[in-house]
Protein backbone atom coordinates (compact mmCIF):
# COMPACT_ATOMS: atom_id res chain seq x y z
CA UNK A 1 0.00 0.00 0.00
CA UNK A 2 2.92 2.32 0.69
CA UNK A 3 4.29 1.83 -2.81
CA UNK A 4 1.97 4.44 -4.33
CA UNK A 5 2.59 8.13 -3.73
CA UNK A 6 -1.04 9.16 -3.26
CA UNK A 7 -2.71 8.72 0.12
CA UNK A 8 -5.78 6.45 0.15
CA UNK A 9 -8.05 9.47 0.72
CA UNK A 10 -6.69 11.36 -2.30
CA UNK A 11 -6.90 8.21 -4.33
CA UNK A 12 -10.53 7.64 -3.38
CA UNK A 13 -11.29 11.25 -4.27
CA UNK A 14 -9.87 11.03 -7.76
CA UNK A 15 -11.46 7.66 -8.49
CA UNK A 16 -14.74 9.13 -7.30
CA UNK A 17 -14.40 12.16 -9.56
CA UNK A 18 -13.81 9.82 -12.48
CA UNK A 19 -16.84 7.69 -11.63
CA UNK A 20 -19.04 10.79 -11.29
CA UNK A 21 -17.90 12.07 -14.66
CA UNK A 22 -18.58 8.70 -16.29
CA UNK A 23 -22.03 8.37 -14.79
CA UNK A 24 -23.49 11.76 -15.58
CA UNK A 25 -24.37 12.98 -19.04
CA UNK A 26 -25.30 16.51 -19.99
CA UNK A 27 -28.67 16.95 -21.71
CA UNK A 28 -29.20 20.02 -23.85
CA UNK A 29 -32.28 21.68 -25.34
CA UNK A 30 -33.38 20.35 -28.72
CA UNK A 31 -32.97 22.82 -31.64
CA UNK A 32 -35.97 24.88 -32.76
CA UNK A 33 -36.30 23.09 -36.11
CA UNK A 34 -36.86 19.85 -34.21
CA UNK A 35 -39.43 21.43 -31.88
CA UNK A 36 -41.20 22.81 -34.95
CA UNK A 37 -41.25 19.46 -36.69
CA UNK A 38 -42.37 17.48 -33.64
CA UNK A 39 -44.65 19.86 -31.76
CA UNK A 40 -45.96 22.64 -34.01
CA UNK A 41 -46.36 21.10 -37.45
CA UNK A 42 -48.67 18.14 -36.55
CA UNK A 43 -51.50 20.22 -34.98
CA UNK A 44 -51.29 22.77 -37.82
CA UNK A 45 -51.70 19.97 -40.34
CA UNK A 46 -54.62 18.53 -38.36
CA UNK A 47 -56.41 21.91 -38.40
CA UNK A 48 -55.80 22.27 -42.13
CA UNK A 49 -57.26 18.80 -42.76
CA UNK A 50 -60.40 19.69 -40.78
CA UNK A 51 -60.80 22.95 -42.71
CA UNK A 52 -60.42 21.22 -46.07
CA UNK A 53 -62.93 18.51 -45.11
CA UNK A 54 -65.33 21.20 -43.94
CA UNK A 55 -64.97 23.14 -47.21
CA UNK A 56 -65.59 19.97 -49.23
CA UNK A 57 -68.61 18.99 -47.14
CA UNK A 58 -70.22 22.40 -47.36
CA UNK A 59 -71.35 22.26 -51.02
CA UNK A 60 -72.57 18.67 -50.48
CA UNK A 61 -74.92 19.70 -47.64
CA UNK A 62 -75.71 22.92 -49.49
CA UNK A 63 -77.85 24.43 -46.72
CA UNK A 64 -76.29 27.37 -44.80
CA UNK A 65 -78.91 27.01 -42.01
CA UNK A 66 -77.47 23.55 -41.29
CA UNK A 67 -73.81 23.89 -42.20
CA UNK A 68 -72.26 27.31 -42.74
CA UNK A 69 -69.10 27.57 -44.78
CA UNK A 70 -65.78 28.36 -43.09
CA UNK A 71 -65.88 31.75 -44.84
CA UNK A 72 -69.31 32.51 -43.32
CA UNK A 73 -68.02 31.74 -39.83
CA UNK A 74 -64.92 33.81 -40.46
CA UNK A 75 -66.90 36.84 -41.67
CA UNK A 76 -69.20 36.44 -38.66
CA UNK A 77 -66.11 36.60 -36.44
CA UNK A 78 -64.92 39.67 -38.35
CA UNK A 79 -68.32 41.25 -37.90
CA UNK A 80 -68.36 40.68 -34.15
CA UNK A 81 -64.80 41.94 -33.95
CA UNK A 82 -65.66 45.17 -35.79
CA UNK A 83 -68.72 45.69 -33.56
CA UNK A 84 -66.32 45.29 -30.63
CA UNK A 85 -68.38 42.52 -29.06
CA UNK A 86 -66.18 39.53 -29.83
CA UNK A 87 -63.62 40.22 -27.11
CA UNK A 88 -66.41 41.08 -24.70
CA UNK A 89 -68.01 37.67 -25.20
CA UNK A 90 -64.68 35.92 -24.77
CA UNK A 91 -63.55 37.96 -21.80
CA UNK A 92 -66.97 37.63 -20.14
CA UNK A 93 -66.64 33.84 -20.09
CA UNK A 94 -62.90 33.65 -19.42
CA UNK A 95 -63.03 36.03 -16.46
CA UNK A 96 -65.97 34.15 -14.95
CA UNK A 97 -64.30 30.82 -15.61
CA UNK A 98 -60.94 31.77 -14.11
CA UNK A 99 -62.46 33.52 -11.10
CA UNK A 100 -64.69 30.52 -10.45
CA UNK A 101 -61.71 28.22 -10.84
CA UNK A 102 -59.65 30.23 -8.34
CA UNK A 103 -62.53 30.02 -5.89
CA UNK A 104 -62.69 26.27 -6.46
CA UNK A 105 -58.94 26.10 -5.81
CA UNK A 106 -59.28 27.93 -2.50
CA UNK A 107 -62.07 25.62 -1.36
CA UNK A 108 -60.91 22.37 -2.94
CA UNK A 109 -57.34 22.40 -1.63
CA UNK A 110 -58.02 22.46 2.13
CA UNK A 111 -60.98 20.14 1.59
CA UNK A 112 -58.77 17.63 -0.23
CA UNK A 113 -56.12 17.87 2.45
CA UNK A 114 -58.68 17.24 5.20
CA UNK A 115 -60.17 14.26 3.38
CA UNK A 116 -56.71 12.83 2.72
CA UNK A 117 -55.31 13.29 6.23
CA UNK A 118 -58.24 12.97 8.66
CA UNK A 119 -59.66 9.49 8.76
CA UNK A 120 -63.12 10.51 9.96
CA UNK A 121 -63.48 13.20 7.29
CA UNK A 122 -62.43 10.72 4.63
CA UNK A 123 -64.94 8.12 5.75
CA UNK A 124 -67.67 10.78 5.85
CA UNK A 125 -66.98 12.85 2.72
CA UNK A 126 -64.66 10.77 0.54
CA UNK A 127 -67.44 8.79 -1.20
CA UNK A 128 -69.60 11.91 -1.63
CA UNK A 129 -66.68 13.72 -3.25
CA UNK A 130 -66.02 10.86 -5.69
CA UNK A 131 -69.74 10.66 -6.47
CA UNK A 132 -69.98 14.39 -7.14
CA UNK A 133 -67.15 14.06 -9.60
CA UNK A 134 -69.18 11.78 -11.83
CA UNK A 135 -72.34 13.90 -11.57
CA UNK A 136 -72.47 16.40 -14.47
CA UNK A 137 -72.68 19.75 -12.75
CA UNK A 138 -75.17 20.99 -15.39
CA UNK A 139 -77.69 19.10 -13.29
CA UNK A 140 -77.30 21.87 -10.71
CA UNK A 141 -78.27 24.71 -13.07
CA UNK A 142 -82.02 24.35 -12.54
CA UNK A 143 -81.97 24.23 -8.72
CA UNK A 144 -79.30 26.94 -8.59
CA UNK A 145 -81.49 29.28 -10.65
CA UNK A 146 -84.43 28.59 -8.36
CA UNK A 147 -82.37 29.15 -5.20
CA UNK A 148 -80.19 32.04 -6.30
CA UNK A 149 -82.16 33.72 -9.07
CA UNK A 150 -80.81 34.53 -12.50
CA UNK A 151 -77.47 36.14 -11.81
CA UNK A 152 -73.77 35.39 -11.78
CA UNK A 153 -73.88 33.43 -8.52
CA UNK A 154 -75.52 30.63 -10.50
CA UNK A 155 -72.45 30.44 -12.72
CA UNK A 156 -70.08 30.31 -9.79
CA UNK A 157 -72.16 27.70 -7.99
CA UNK A 158 -72.11 25.45 -11.01
CA UNK A 159 -68.37 25.98 -11.56
CA UNK A 160 -67.62 25.16 -7.93
CA UNK A 161 -69.73 22.02 -7.98
CA UNK A 162 -67.88 20.94 -11.12
CA UNK A 163 -64.32 21.85 -10.14
CA UNK A 164 -64.07 21.43 -6.36
CA UNK A 165 -64.51 17.63 -6.41
CA UNK A 166 -61.86 17.27 -9.14
CA UNK A 167 -59.33 19.42 -7.32
CA UNK A 168 -59.98 17.78 -3.95
CA UNK A 169 -59.91 14.26 -5.39
CA UNK A 170 -56.70 15.01 -7.27
CA UNK A 171 -55.06 16.07 -4.04
CA UNK A 172 -56.41 13.02 -2.19
CA UNK A 173 -55.02 10.60 -4.75
CA UNK A 174 -51.77 12.57 -4.82
CA UNK A 175 -51.45 12.18 -1.06
CA UNK A 176 -52.40 8.51 -1.19
CA UNK A 177 -49.65 7.84 -3.71
CA UNK A 178 -46.87 9.44 -1.67
CA UNK A 179 -44.30 6.64 -1.23
CA UNK A 180 -44.16 5.56 2.44
CA UNK A 181 -40.37 5.80 2.20
CA UNK A 182 -40.62 9.60 1.91
CA UNK A 183 -42.84 9.76 4.98
CA UNK A 184 -40.41 7.63 6.98
CA UNK A 185 -37.42 9.62 5.74
CA UNK A 186 -39.27 12.79 6.73
CA UNK A 187 -39.97 11.43 10.18
CA UNK A 188 -36.33 10.57 10.84
CA UNK A 189 -35.46 14.15 9.82
CA UNK A 190 -38.00 15.46 12.30
CA UNK A 191 -40.83 16.35 9.91
CA UNK A 192 -43.87 15.17 11.87
CA UNK A 193 -47.39 16.55 12.18
CA UNK A 194 -47.98 19.83 10.36
CA UNK A 195 -44.31 20.15 9.44
CA UNK A 196 -44.52 16.72 7.81
CA UNK A 197 -47.61 17.79 5.87
CA UNK A 198 -45.97 21.02 4.70
CA UNK A 199 -42.45 19.78 3.92
CA UNK A 200 -43.10 16.21 2.78
CA UNK A 201 -46.73 15.34 2.02
CA UNK A 202 -47.70 18.46 0.07
CA UNK A 203 -44.69 18.58 -2.26
CA UNK A 204 -44.74 14.81 -2.72
CA UNK A 205 -48.43 14.98 -3.68
CA UNK A 206 -47.91 17.82 -6.17
CA UNK A 207 -48.11 15.73 -9.38
CA UNK A 208 -51.52 14.34 -8.41
CA UNK A 209 -52.65 17.78 -7.30
CA UNK A 210 -51.68 19.39 -10.60
CA UNK A 211 -53.46 16.62 -12.53
CA UNK A 212 -56.53 17.46 -10.43
CA UNK A 213 -56.17 21.15 -11.27
CA UNK A 214 -56.02 20.38 -14.97
CA UNK A 215 -59.14 18.29 -14.79
CA UNK A 216 -60.75 20.87 -12.50
CA UNK A 217 -60.25 23.53 -15.16
CA UNK A 218 -61.83 21.33 -17.85
CA UNK A 219 -64.81 20.75 -15.57
CA UNK A 220 -65.03 24.46 -14.70
CA UNK A 221 -65.14 25.49 -18.31
CA UNK A 222 -67.61 22.82 -19.32
CA UNK A 223 -69.96 23.62 -16.45
CA UNK A 224 -69.76 27.35 -17.09
CA UNK A 225 -70.61 26.97 -20.78
CA UNK A 226 -73.57 24.73 -19.97
CA UNK A 227 -74.80 27.22 -17.41
CA UNK A 228 -74.39 30.13 -19.79
CA UNK A 229 -76.37 28.36 -22.48
CA UNK A 230 -79.17 27.24 -20.18
CA UNK A 231 -79.54 30.22 -17.85
CA UNK A 232 -80.30 33.23 -20.03
CA UNK A 233 -80.94 36.66 -18.61
CA UNK A 234 -79.93 40.24 -19.43
CA UNK A 235 -78.39 40.55 -15.92
CA UNK A 236 -75.85 37.84 -16.69
CA UNK A 237 -73.56 39.90 -18.85
CA UNK A 238 -71.96 38.59 -22.00
CA UNK A 239 -70.38 35.22 -22.51
CA UNK A 240 -69.73 32.64 -25.19
CA UNK A 241 -72.77 30.64 -24.05
CA UNK A 242 -74.87 33.75 -24.58
CA UNK A 243 -73.33 34.20 -28.02
CA UNK A 244 -74.42 30.68 -28.93
CA UNK A 245 -77.92 31.39 -27.70
CA UNK A 246 -78.00 34.64 -29.72
CA UNK A 247 -77.12 32.63 -32.83
CA UNK A 248 -79.86 30.10 -32.07
CA UNK A 249 -82.59 32.73 -31.61
CA UNK A 250 -81.48 34.52 -34.79
CA UNK A 251 -81.30 31.20 -36.66
CA UNK A 252 -77.72 32.09 -37.61
CA UNK A 253 -75.78 28.87 -37.88
CA UNK A 254 -72.62 30.85 -38.55
CA UNK A 255 -72.90 32.51 -35.12
CA UNK A 256 -73.60 29.16 -33.45
CA UNK A 257 -70.54 27.65 -35.11
CA UNK A 258 -68.43 30.63 -34.15
CA UNK A 259 -69.51 30.26 -30.52
CA UNK A 260 -68.78 26.53 -30.49
CA UNK A 261 -65.36 27.03 -32.04
CA UNK A 262 -64.52 29.80 -29.58
CA UNK A 263 -65.59 27.70 -26.58
CA UNK A 264 -63.35 24.89 -27.82
CA UNK A 265 -60.51 27.24 -28.63
CA UNK A 266 -60.52 29.12 -25.31
CA UNK A 267 -60.72 25.91 -23.27
CA UNK A 268 -57.73 24.47 -25.12
CA UNK A 269 -55.79 27.74 -25.03
CA UNK A 270 -56.05 28.09 -21.25
CA UNK A 271 -54.98 24.48 -20.80
CA UNK A 272 -52.04 24.97 -23.16
CA UNK A 273 -50.99 28.29 -21.65
CA UNK A 274 -51.38 27.52 -17.95
CA UNK A 275 -52.00 23.93 -16.95
CA UNK A 276 -49.92 21.91 -19.39
CA UNK A 277 -46.74 23.96 -18.75
CA UNK A 278 -47.36 23.68 -15.00
CA UNK A 279 -47.76 19.93 -15.23
CA UNK A 280 -44.72 19.52 -17.45
CA UNK A 281 -42.60 21.64 -15.14
CA UNK A 282 -43.61 19.60 -12.07
CA UNK A 283 -42.94 16.28 -13.77
CA UNK A 284 -39.73 17.34 -15.47
CA UNK A 285 -38.16 18.76 -12.33
CA UNK A 286 -38.63 15.34 -10.72
CA UNK A 287 -37.28 13.41 -13.67
CA UNK A 288 -40.72 11.89 -14.27
CA UNK A 289 -40.94 13.16 -17.84
CA UNK A 290 -38.73 11.72 -20.54
CA UNK A 291 -37.65 14.39 -22.98
CA UNK A 292 -39.03 13.50 -26.39
Amino acid at each position, binding site marked *: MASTETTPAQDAGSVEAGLDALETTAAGRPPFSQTFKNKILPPVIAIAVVLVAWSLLHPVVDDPTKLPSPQDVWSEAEDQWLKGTLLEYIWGSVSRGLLGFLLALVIGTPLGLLVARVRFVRAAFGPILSGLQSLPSVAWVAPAVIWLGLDNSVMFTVILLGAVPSIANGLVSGVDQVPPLFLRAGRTLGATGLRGTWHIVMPAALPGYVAGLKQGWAFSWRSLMAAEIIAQSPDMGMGLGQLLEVGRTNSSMATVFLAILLILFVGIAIDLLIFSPLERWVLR*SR*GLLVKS
Partner: protein
Amino acid sequence: MATTLAKAAESVEFAARLEHVSKSFAGPGGQQLVLDDISIDVAPGEFVTLLGASGCGKSTLLNLVAGLDRPTAGSIATDGRPALMFQEHALFPWLTAGKNIELALRLRGVPKTDRRAKAEELLGLVRLRGAYGKRVHELSGGMRQRVALARALAQESNLLLMDEPFAALDAITRDVLHDELTRIWAETGVSVLFVTHNVREAVRLAQRVVLLSSRPGRIAREWTVGIPQPRRIEDAPVAELSLEITDVLRGEIRRHGQH
Protein backbone atom coordinates in the same frame (compact mmCIF):
# COMPACT_ATOMS: atom_id res chain seq x y z
CA MET B 1 -42.11 3.66 28.31
CA ALA B 2 -40.14 1.69 25.81
CA THR B 3 -37.85 4.43 24.57
CA THR B 4 -35.93 6.87 26.66
CA LEU B 5 -34.14 9.72 25.03
CA ALA B 6 -31.08 10.53 27.04
CA LYS B 7 -30.01 14.16 26.94
CA ALA B 8 -26.80 14.87 25.12
CA ALA B 9 -25.71 17.18 27.93
CA GLU B 10 -25.43 14.35 30.41
CA SER B 11 -22.38 12.24 30.00
CA VAL B 12 -23.67 9.06 28.41
CA GLU B 13 -21.70 5.89 28.15
CA PHE B 14 -23.55 4.71 25.03
CA ALA B 15 -24.83 6.02 21.74
CA ALA B 16 -27.47 3.34 21.67
CA ARG B 17 -28.49 0.73 24.22
CA LEU B 18 -30.83 -2.12 23.31
CA GLU B 19 -31.95 -4.30 26.19
CA HIS B 20 -33.82 -7.55 25.57
CA VAL B 21 -35.57 -6.17 22.54
CA SER B 22 -38.15 -8.40 20.88
CA LYS B 23 -40.46 -7.68 18.01
CA SER B 24 -43.27 -9.70 16.54
CA PHE B 25 -45.66 -8.95 13.72
CA ALA B 26 -49.19 -10.22 13.25
CA GLY B 27 -48.74 -12.89 10.59
CA PRO B 28 -51.11 -15.33 8.92
CA GLY B 29 -50.54 -17.96 11.61
CA GLY B 30 -50.79 -15.68 14.64
CA GLN B 31 -47.91 -13.64 16.02
CA GLN B 32 -44.67 -14.09 14.14
CA LEU B 33 -41.57 -13.47 16.22
CA VAL B 34 -38.99 -11.60 14.11
CA LEU B 35 -36.51 -10.37 16.71
CA ASP B 36 -35.88 -12.24 19.91
CA ASP B 37 -34.09 -10.87 22.97
CA ILE B 38 -31.58 -8.58 21.29
CA SER B 39 -29.21 -6.69 23.56
CA ILE B 40 -26.57 -4.47 21.97
CA ASP B 41 -24.62 -1.48 23.20
CA VAL B 42 -23.06 0.95 20.77
CA ALA B 43 -20.38 3.04 22.49
CA PRO B 44 -19.94 6.73 21.57
CA GLY B 45 -17.81 6.89 18.43
CA GLU B 46 -17.98 3.17 17.84
CA PHE B 47 -18.57 1.55 14.43
CA VAL B 48 -20.70 -1.58 14.71
CA THR B 49 -21.98 -3.68 11.84
CA LEU B 50 -25.02 -5.90 12.15
CA LEU B 51 -24.66 -8.88 9.88
CA GLY B 52 -27.40 -11.29 8.95
CA ALA B 53 -29.04 -13.20 6.13
CA SER B 54 -31.82 -11.66 4.11
CA GLY B 55 -35.07 -11.44 6.04
CA CYS B 56 -33.54 -11.97 9.48
CA GLY B 57 -34.92 -8.69 10.78
CA LYS B 58 -32.07 -6.20 10.30
CA SER B 59 -34.26 -3.47 8.85
CA THR B 60 -36.86 -4.11 11.52
CA LEU B 61 -34.21 -3.63 14.18
CA LEU B 62 -32.95 -0.37 12.67
CA ASN B 63 -36.50 0.94 12.40
CA LEU B 64 -36.92 0.25 16.10
CA VAL B 65 -33.73 2.09 16.99
CA ALA B 66 -34.76 4.98 14.70
CA GLY B 67 -38.07 5.21 16.54
CA LEU B 68 -40.13 4.48 13.43
CA ASP B 69 -41.66 1.47 15.17
CA ARG B 70 -42.02 0.22 18.74
CA PRO B 71 -40.54 -2.97 20.15
CA THR B 72 -42.94 -5.62 21.41
CA ALA B 73 -40.77 -6.09 24.49
CA GLY B 74 -37.55 -4.68 25.88
CA SER B 75 -36.21 -1.14 25.82
CA ILE B 76 -34.17 1.00 23.48
CA ALA B 77 -32.32 4.13 24.55
CA THR B 78 -30.41 6.40 22.22
CA ASP B 79 -28.29 9.48 22.75
CA GLY B 80 -30.58 11.94 20.98
CA ARG B 81 -32.59 11.21 17.83
CA PRO B 82 -30.55 9.02 15.49
CA ALA B 83 -30.08 9.74 11.79
CA LEU B 84 -31.12 6.96 9.42
CA MET B 85 -29.83 6.22 5.97
CA PHE B 86 -32.03 3.91 3.96
CA GLN B 87 -31.16 1.17 1.47
CA GLU B 88 -32.83 3.30 -1.21
CA HIS B 89 -31.46 6.85 -1.16
CA ALA B 90 -34.85 8.29 -0.04
CA LEU B 91 -33.88 11.75 -1.29
CA PHE B 92 -36.82 14.01 -2.07
CA PRO B 93 -37.13 14.38 -5.87
CA TRP B 94 -38.84 17.79 -5.66
CA LEU B 95 -35.70 19.30 -4.10
CA THR B 96 -32.18 19.69 -5.41
CA ALA B 97 -29.34 17.83 -3.71
CA GLY B 98 -28.43 20.97 -1.78
CA LYS B 99 -32.01 21.69 -0.74
CA ASN B 100 -32.42 18.13 0.50
CA ILE B 101 -29.59 18.76 2.91
CA GLU B 102 -30.94 22.20 3.81
CA LEU B 103 -34.31 20.67 4.68
CA ALA B 104 -32.60 18.45 7.23
CA LEU B 105 -30.81 21.53 8.62
CA ARG B 106 -34.04 23.52 8.70
CA LEU B 107 -35.93 20.80 10.54
CA ARG B 108 -33.10 20.75 13.06
CA GLY B 109 -33.55 24.48 13.64
CA VAL B 110 -30.45 25.80 11.86
CA PRO B 111 -31.11 29.50 10.99
CA LYS B 112 -31.77 30.27 7.33
CA THR B 113 -28.63 32.35 6.86
CA ASP B 114 -26.34 29.47 7.86
CA ARG B 115 -27.99 26.72 5.88
CA ARG B 116 -26.50 27.31 2.46
CA ALA B 117 -22.92 27.37 3.69
CA LYS B 118 -23.48 24.34 5.90
CA ALA B 119 -25.03 22.37 3.03
CA GLU B 120 -22.07 23.22 0.77
CA GLU B 121 -19.72 22.13 3.50
CA LEU B 122 -21.49 18.78 3.89
CA LEU B 123 -21.45 18.27 0.12
CA GLY B 124 -17.74 18.96 0.28
CA LEU B 125 -17.39 16.31 2.96
CA VAL B 126 -18.84 13.68 0.60
CA ARG B 127 -16.85 15.22 -2.28
CA LEU B 128 -19.82 16.51 -4.23
CA ARG B 129 -19.14 20.21 -4.11
CA GLY B 130 -20.56 20.84 -7.59
CA ALA B 131 -23.82 18.97 -7.00
CA TYR B 132 -25.64 21.61 -4.95
CA GLY B 133 -28.12 22.57 -7.69
CA LYS B 134 -28.50 19.09 -9.19
CA ARG B 135 -31.84 17.32 -9.16
CA VAL B 136 -31.91 13.83 -7.68
CA HIS B 137 -32.60 12.18 -11.04
CA GLU B 138 -29.55 13.88 -12.51
CA LEU B 139 -27.23 12.08 -10.09
CA SER B 140 -25.78 8.59 -10.42
CA GLY B 141 -26.58 5.91 -7.86
CA GLY B 142 -23.32 6.42 -6.01
CA MET B 143 -23.76 10.19 -5.95
CA ARG B 144 -27.30 9.82 -4.61
CA GLN B 145 -26.09 7.68 -1.75
CA ARG B 146 -23.41 10.25 -0.95
CA VAL B 147 -25.98 13.06 -0.90
CA ALA B 148 -28.15 10.85 1.32
CA LEU B 149 -25.13 10.39 3.60
CA ALA B 150 -24.59 14.15 3.66
CA ARG B 151 -28.26 14.67 4.53
CA ALA B 152 -28.01 12.14 7.35
CA LEU B 153 -24.86 13.86 8.62
CA ALA B 154 -26.69 17.21 8.51
CA GLN B 155 -28.78 16.00 11.43
CA GLU B 156 -25.62 16.02 13.53
CA SER B 157 -26.91 13.05 15.46
CA ASN B 158 -24.60 11.17 17.75
CA LEU B 159 -25.74 7.97 16.11
CA LEU B 160 -25.90 7.20 12.41
CA LEU B 161 -28.00 4.19 11.41
CA MET B 162 -27.29 2.76 7.97
CA ASP B 163 -29.49 0.12 6.37
CA GLU B 164 -27.48 -1.59 3.60
CA PRO B 165 -26.81 1.79 2.02
CA PHE B 166 -24.38 0.48 -0.59
CA ALA B 167 -26.11 -2.79 -1.51
CA ALA B 168 -27.38 -1.55 -4.87
CA LEU B 169 -24.05 -0.13 -6.03
CA ASP B 170 -21.40 -1.71 -8.22
CA ALA B 171 -18.26 -3.05 -6.56
CA ILE B 172 -15.95 -0.20 -7.60
CA THR B 173 -18.28 2.54 -6.38
CA ARG B 174 -18.90 0.61 -3.18
CA ASP B 175 -15.17 0.32 -2.50
CA VAL B 176 -14.77 4.05 -2.88
CA LEU B 177 -17.70 4.75 -0.60
CA HIS B 178 -16.26 2.42 2.03
CA ASP B 179 -13.13 4.58 2.03
CA GLU B 180 -15.24 7.72 2.27
CA LEU B 181 -17.37 6.40 5.10
CA THR B 182 -14.33 5.32 7.08
CA ARG B 183 -12.77 8.77 6.59
CA ILE B 184 -15.96 10.64 7.54
CA TRP B 185 -16.49 8.42 10.56
CA ALA B 186 -12.95 9.19 11.75
CA GLU B 187 -13.36 12.92 11.04
CA THR B 188 -16.75 13.41 12.70
CA GLY B 189 -16.53 10.91 15.55
CA VAL B 190 -20.12 9.81 14.95
CA SER B 191 -21.23 6.39 16.17
CA VAL B 192 -22.40 4.10 13.40
CA LEU B 193 -24.70 1.11 13.44
CA PHE B 194 -24.35 -0.34 9.96
CA VAL B 195 -26.54 -3.15 8.66
CA THR B 196 -25.41 -5.45 5.87
CA HIS B 197 -25.66 -9.00 4.59
CA ASN B 198 -22.21 -8.71 3.04
CA VAL B 199 -19.64 -10.33 5.35
CA ARG B 200 -16.59 -8.64 3.79
CA GLU B 201 -18.25 -5.26 3.91
CA ALA B 202 -18.99 -5.81 7.59
CA VAL B 203 -15.37 -6.70 8.34
CA ARG B 204 -13.97 -3.96 6.09
CA LEU B 205 -15.82 -1.25 8.01
CA ALA B 206 -16.44 -2.23 11.59
CA GLN B 207 -14.73 -2.23 14.92
CA ARG B 208 -17.25 -4.84 15.99
CA VAL B 209 -19.33 -7.28 13.95
CA VAL B 210 -22.57 -8.62 15.42
CA LEU B 211 -24.00 -11.68 13.69
CA LEU B 212 -27.77 -12.15 13.74
CA SER B 213 -29.34 -15.56 13.25
CA SER B 214 -32.55 -15.93 11.30
CA ARG B 215 -36.11 -16.69 12.28
CA PRO B 216 -36.23 -15.41 14.87
CA GLY B 217 -33.37 -12.95 14.76
CA ARG B 218 -31.09 -13.55 17.72
CA ILE B 219 -27.54 -12.51 18.36
CA ALA B 220 -25.52 -15.52 17.27
CA ARG B 221 -22.00 -14.24 17.86
CA GLU B 222 -19.84 -11.15 18.05
CA TRP B 223 -16.37 -10.39 16.77
CA THR B 224 -14.08 -7.52 17.61
CA VAL B 225 -12.15 -6.48 14.51
CA GLY B 226 -8.63 -5.45 15.45
CA ILE B 227 -7.36 -4.80 11.91
CA PRO B 228 -6.10 -1.19 11.71
CA GLN B 229 -7.78 1.31 9.35
CA PRO B 230 -7.41 2.14 6.52
CA ARG B 231 -8.30 -1.35 5.40
CA ARG B 232 -9.09 -2.64 1.99
CA ILE B 233 -11.67 -5.27 1.24
CA GLU B 234 -8.95 -7.40 -0.43
CA ASP B 235 -6.57 -7.31 2.56
CA ALA B 236 -5.59 -10.74 3.82
CA PRO B 237 -6.69 -10.21 7.45
CA VAL B 238 -10.09 -8.95 6.24
CA ALA B 239 -10.49 -11.99 4.01
CA GLU B 240 -9.41 -14.31 6.81
CA LEU B 241 -11.92 -13.00 9.36
CA SER B 242 -14.62 -12.90 6.67
CA LEU B 243 -14.03 -16.58 6.01
CA GLU B 244 -14.39 -17.42 9.68
CA ILE B 245 -17.62 -15.40 9.98
CA THR B 246 -19.01 -16.87 6.76
CA ASP B 247 -18.54 -20.37 8.16
CA VAL B 248 -20.51 -19.51 11.27
CA LEU B 249 -23.19 -17.79 9.14
CA ARG B 250 -23.45 -20.87 6.91
CA GLY B 251 -23.85 -23.04 9.99
CA GLU B 252 -26.68 -20.81 11.18
CA ILE B 253 -28.43 -21.02 7.83
CA ARG B 254 -27.89 -24.78 7.62
CA ARG B 255 -29.74 -25.29 10.90
CA HIS B 256 -32.92 -24.07 9.18
CA GLY B 257 -32.73 -26.77 6.54
CA GLN B 258 -32.55 -29.60 9.08
CA HIS B 259 -36.07 -29.47 10.50
